[in-house]
């Protein structure tokens, strides 16, 4: 009995020694804290992080989950970075944040790690959005862009091809409306409420007429340029209350999508997520009857899309920038983006993923999205973008609500305000 006890103790000690030796040999993993928002499909992100752990046993990713809403998540990230909190290493940035985060000194300059050659492997829009004064501060994770949805069945019935010009869209729409003679049917539905989405939709009309809000190089606001005024008056006089219901002035994405999936709109502008909803027979009356592509343009100009999406950034005060970079690099690799595309329907930012045979087979619609993604442009780049956006929302909402208003005068007044704000942001940088 006694020998047994001794043996057990001996084995125990030997075992403990072994574990101890193993611990001493293997390096203790470095912890990298990733502050994320609450994802729609957390299990997909868990898979990606598990894969990272398998390939990088020397790094441990600690996930902290923040709020789901972009504004609230921004408040939390900004709060912690502002206080030079070292307990965050990696975070997400919405597409409009990089200039703010770069200017405030919150996001680490990634130029030395994220080479130009590597940047070329990504779609151009998100790279521009992450670049501020020649340096890059974020790596694009997935993107969104304004897409043009249409009723393929109706276009076929009347022998139309998807329109490439706004005017063409209206003509086709009128013919279909007359032919169908269905009460409550509209030509177009989009987002025109006084909120961030209004800026996105209006930018697409303006860009597709060769206009812009700000000349990014000179910092001059050019809202009163004829290209801009014409595009805005087109929306006011031909879209609101004509092609689109007047109620669209209070529509966000859900209301406008609702009109489309109830079969009450022939053409529809929305983000990539609308594809899955509109093709879900449980929610949509037009499932399987729709097509998607790039938004129309004005004559002599090409289609434009507003860029959306999320990027990874590294805390400027992180004590593990190298490990954080390895994590980001892995999360934006071909394999991970493929997983996110296949399992969470997130649109890849890496060009090569679109050529992947499995993606082409299982996510065939991404091919139709690609032209819009390649063309997608960021909204004005400025650390005070939220202020600029408020002025733009006010101007656009007034412009499209009040028929017969003095557009040029309003545009000129707004230009002055925006230029002041833009200079305020740029001045700091010098």
């Amino acid at each position, binding site marked *: 009995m006694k020998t047994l006890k001794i043996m057990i103790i001996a084995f125990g000690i030997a075992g403990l020694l072994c574990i101890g030796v193993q611990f001493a040999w293997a390096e203790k993993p470095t912890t990298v804290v990733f502050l994320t928002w609450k994802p729609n499909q957390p299990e997909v992100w868990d898979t990606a992080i598990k894969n990272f752990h398998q390939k990088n046993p020397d790094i441990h990713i600690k996930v902290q989950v923040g709020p789901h809403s972009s*504004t609230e998540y921004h*408040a939390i990230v*900004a709060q912690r970075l*502002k206080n030079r909190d070292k307990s965050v290493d990696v975070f997400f940035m919405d597409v409009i944040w990089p200039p*703010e985060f770069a*200017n*405030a*000194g919150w996001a680490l300059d990634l130029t030395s790690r994220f080479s130009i050659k590597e940047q070329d492997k990504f779609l151009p829009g998100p790279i521009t959005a992450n670049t501020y004064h020649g340096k890059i501060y974020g790596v694009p994770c997935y993107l969104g862009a304004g897409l043009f949805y249409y009723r393929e069945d109706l276009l076929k019935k009347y022998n139309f091809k998807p329109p490439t010009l706004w005017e063409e869209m209206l003509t086709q729409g009128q013919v279909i409306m007359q032919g169908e003679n269905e*009460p*409550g049917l509209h030509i177009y539905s989009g987002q025109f*409420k*006084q*909120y961030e989405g209004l800026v996105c939709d209006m930018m697409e009309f303006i860009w597709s007429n060769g206009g812009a809000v700000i000349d990014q190089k000179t910092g001059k606001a050019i809202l009163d340029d004829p290209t801009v005024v014409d595009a805005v008056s087109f929306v006011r006089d031909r879209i609101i209350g004509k092609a689109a*219901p*007047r*109620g*669209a*002035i*209070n529509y966000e994405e859900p*209301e406008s999508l*609702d*009109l489309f999936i109830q079969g*009450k709109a022939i053409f529809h502008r929305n983000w990539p997520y609308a594809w899955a909803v509109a093709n879900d027979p449980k929610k949509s009356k037009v499932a399987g009857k729709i097509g998607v592509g790039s938004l129309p343009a004005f004559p002599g100009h090409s289609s434009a899309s507003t860029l959306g999406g999320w990027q990874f950034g590294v805390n400027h005060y992180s004590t593990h920038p190298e490990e954080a970079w390895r994590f980001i690099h892995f999360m934006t690799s071909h394999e991970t983006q493929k997983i996110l595309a296949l399992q969470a329907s997130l649109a890849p930012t890496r060009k090569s993923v679109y050529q992947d045979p499995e993606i082409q087979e299982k996510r065939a619609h991404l091919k139709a999205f690609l032209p819009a993604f390649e063309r997608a442009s960021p909204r004005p780049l400025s*650390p*005070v973008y*939220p*202020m600029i956006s*408020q002025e733009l*929302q*006010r101007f656009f*909402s*007034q412009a499209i*609500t*009040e028929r017969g208003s003095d557009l040029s005068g309003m545009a000129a007044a707004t230009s002055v305000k925006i230029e002041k704000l833009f200079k*305020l*942001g740029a001045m*700091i940088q010098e």
Partner: protein
Amino acid sequence: MTRKDQNFYLALLVPAIAVLLLFIAAPIVHSFFLSFHRIIIGLPQLKTPFVGLDNYRELLNDPVARHSFWVTIIFVGTTTFFELLIGILLALLIHHRFPGRGALRACVLIPWAIPTVVSAQMWRFLFNDAYGVINYAIFGANISHYIPWLALPPTALLSIVVADIWKTSSFAALLILAGLQVIPEELYQAAKVDGAVVWQRFLHITWPLIRPALLVALLFRTIDAFRVFDLAFVMTQGGPADATNVLQLYGYKKMFVEGWMGYGSAISVCIFIMVMVLAIAYVRMVGRRLLEASV
């Protein structure tokens, strides 16, 4: 009362005063402090310089703020008037004795008990231009006449006014009902003996005696209406063309969307001062009326 007792009573007040200072006085003082500084969240390089009354000067010359002020005044005026009017009618109704009065009294309070965000969302659906019940109720299947309530500036403001009246009339009714219940029944009996008809009894007995309660309701409703935020936030986000951009929403956007803390605080401080002045004026009026009533 000895001096010792007095000290003891004062000591008992300390916790209550401490809580008030910490949770009410401190944030207000801090808002004042912020409003004298230039603070922009996205531009930390600017630091937080003291700018004196600059924010207030800018606010006075801000056409958007002026517009928001008038929107708020229209909202306060219309909602308060109709809430008190409907409040009186509701109170008279549920003051009467009839079968099922208890149940009806409880029902009247339901709108007030629903969180504003929820009822705002509900009204947003009701006012929807394509599927809204309100359009259907007025125009039936005749969809060409449907009104896009929330898309036209005047009707958008009207919509949030209606939503507020629906929600808080019952609160006014509750306060007025309390006033009704303290009127002695003998007064009515005496008036009946003297041959006073219904409207004479209302005009000479009910009306003068519920006036103090009415003033209290008026005080609460004006102050509350001044601070309207959630209805506009949920239903319209201040649009279209700023038609429902009430002051609180404007201040919120400046502070939390644009990150312009100093300017946003100046807006809050102005609202605070306006409400404060109103409150003091009302309280003095109410105080006098209450005294008169009890004499």
